[in-house]
């Protein structure tokens, strides 16, 4: 509580907008994957249009946060809270961009249908990423940072699934060069989803810092082994 109640209003506004952005970003991930899997072009268009709102929300948060810093000169908790909202909103905005990119690719992939199997892999990857984002944003609401423990585990899981998908897509491309166009699109979609998971992890770190004033312990196992995946051509 502050003596100036408008200050409280400002902080509450920032948190509310961040949560609203989170809701929009979660919805965009969900819809973009659904557009991709179900070959749904109108849904993809909707996602592309929704990105605009997310951008606007981020600008709004930036401006309000700057205004609060200039006017109230916050310290300690409040300062962390405000900086946190700027950082989280920029992560969420990136998540929205990635969702928009998936939606764009969904329209191109729709031209040539791929085996259902490929989409199943992407779907389970996206489920992991949205679970990650939801858990993290729930902690933003409840401030129970002890729940952030599972975030690292899931990040590891996402990376492992991504690497496996990468390999699978390469195999498909080698089987038939006609698959290359759509498989490349799917590969980028998978990469985008994996990046969403990373942004969620970033948000988790920010929240931990905002609440405890300490950095989340820094061990961060890198499990994305796709950089050294090669597939041999056997003749």
């Amino acid at each position, binding site marked *: 509580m502050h003596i100036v109640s408008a200050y409280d209003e400002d902080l*509450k506004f920032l*948190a*509310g907008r961040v*949560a*609203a952005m*989170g*809701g*929009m970003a*979660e*919805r965009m991930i*969900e819809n973009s994957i659904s557009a991709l899997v179900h070959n749904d072009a109108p849904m993809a268009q909707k996602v592309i249009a929704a990105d605009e709102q997310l951008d606007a929300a981020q600008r709004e948060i930036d401006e309000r946060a700057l205004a609060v810093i200039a006017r109230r000169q916050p310290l300690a908790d409040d300062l962390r809270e405000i900086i946190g909202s700027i950082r989280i909103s920029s992560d969420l905005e990136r998540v929205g961009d990635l969702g928009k990119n998936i939606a764009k690719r969904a329209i191109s992939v729709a031209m040539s249908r791929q085996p*259902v*199997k490929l989409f*199943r*892999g992407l779907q*389970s990857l996206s*489920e992991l990423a*949205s*679970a990650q984002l*939801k*858990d993290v*944003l*729930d*902690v*933003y*609401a*409840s401030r*129970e940072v002890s*729940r952030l423990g599972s975030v690292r585990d899931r990040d590891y*899981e996402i990376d*492992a*699934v991504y*690497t*496996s*998908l990468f*390999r699978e897509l390469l195999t498909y491309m080698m089987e038939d060069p006609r698959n290359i166009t759509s498989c490349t699109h799917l590969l980028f979609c998978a990469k985008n989803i994996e990046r969403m998971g990373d942004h969620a992890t970033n948000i988790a770190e920010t929240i931990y810092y905002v609440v405890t004033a300490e950095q989340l312990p820094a061990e961060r196992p890198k499990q994305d082994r796709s950089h050294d995946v090669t597939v041999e051509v056997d003749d």
Partner: protein
Amino acid sequence: MSETDTTETTRSALALYATRLSEARWVVIAAIVSILFVAAFSTVSWLYVAISLVGVVTAAAAVPRRSRMRRRREARAHAMLGPLERLSAERLAAAVPDPLILFDQTGRIVHVNQPAQAAFGSTSPGVDVQLRFRSPEMQELVRALLSGNDRPAGVDYAERLPVERHYRVSASSVGAGSGLYVLVFKDQSELRRVDRMRADFIANASHELRTPLASISGFIETLRGPARDDPGARDRFLEIMNNQTARMARLIDDLLSLSRLEMKSFVNPEERVDICLLVGGVIDSLNQLAKDAGVEIVRAIPSEPIEVPGSRDELIQVFENLLENACKYGQSGGRVEIAVERSDNDPKSGVDVTVRDFGPGIPDEHIPRVTERFYRVDVEESRTQKGTGLGLAIVKHILSRHNARLTIRSKVGEGAAFTVHLPGP
């Protein structure tokens, strides 16, 4: 005895007078001051002044504060209040079977009833309702409510994790002047799920049944044409067709059991299951299959019971699937180990069940994905072992309903270990 009674009565009467006096103190003081004021400027005898002072004080102490009529009216109103008005909001909320959340004008949650606590987890009082329910529709709903729209239209709200659930949310303000608002969540998952399941089932079934069907129709064509008079080929083809129809039957069984599982509404299992007994039973039922495969089952199960909350039938299916897989795909190892142990020494802790085989193992890149539907590490191997590609998907689904986890460790050439971590009571 009667003497103490009298003292008691006197004491309570004195207390009553004292209360009345203290309640009326300002009026009494004003009266005393004005009497003294008048007395100071007139020639009235001090005796009369003293009498009137005593009179004022006595009257203040003796006359009841509220008139008889008002008292009677209040008593009547209280009698008419009935049990409903006297009920506390908290008790009322507890009696509602649907999740219900009360929040105040600033959007902070004031009260969460038990079903809401179970459904949404981290929603303790003090959490901002707009931070917890972030979907754009919910944001709009809460905003409309807080800005004075008394009864905005209800919205749909879906929670995808840990288990997909759909709600119809209605919102309204509670009474005038209380400044409280209520959200009521009506669970509609069942309806939605039935719809989606039907679509999913058809999609999966048509996709997976097409391969065996195509091969059967191919063989029928051959039997009618070139192989019409070749008894050797006929027998061979009929054998293959028999296998294919058996595969289709298994596939349909598995698809059905998966969609049955997904259809059942999510309830936290209240049943308690002795995991040692259950695993022992599963081993006994699969002994024959293991013998046929030439696999020896080695068990390491403690003799005392370990109880966890869970659904008996579903957990039996989990361990049956895991053990069957181990016997089939780990056949070359000739041995399957099954171990039950507590996660910690604490009797409240969960339990870990490990099924380990010594077969060829699972390559790294497949491990994170083996629980996906129809994902097969080796399509040929799966076909010969009569796998449907759904066994582990079923396991994963059941475990997520139990808040349990499955970890898979494997090294190529050394076998695989599947560990189920079931949470304790």
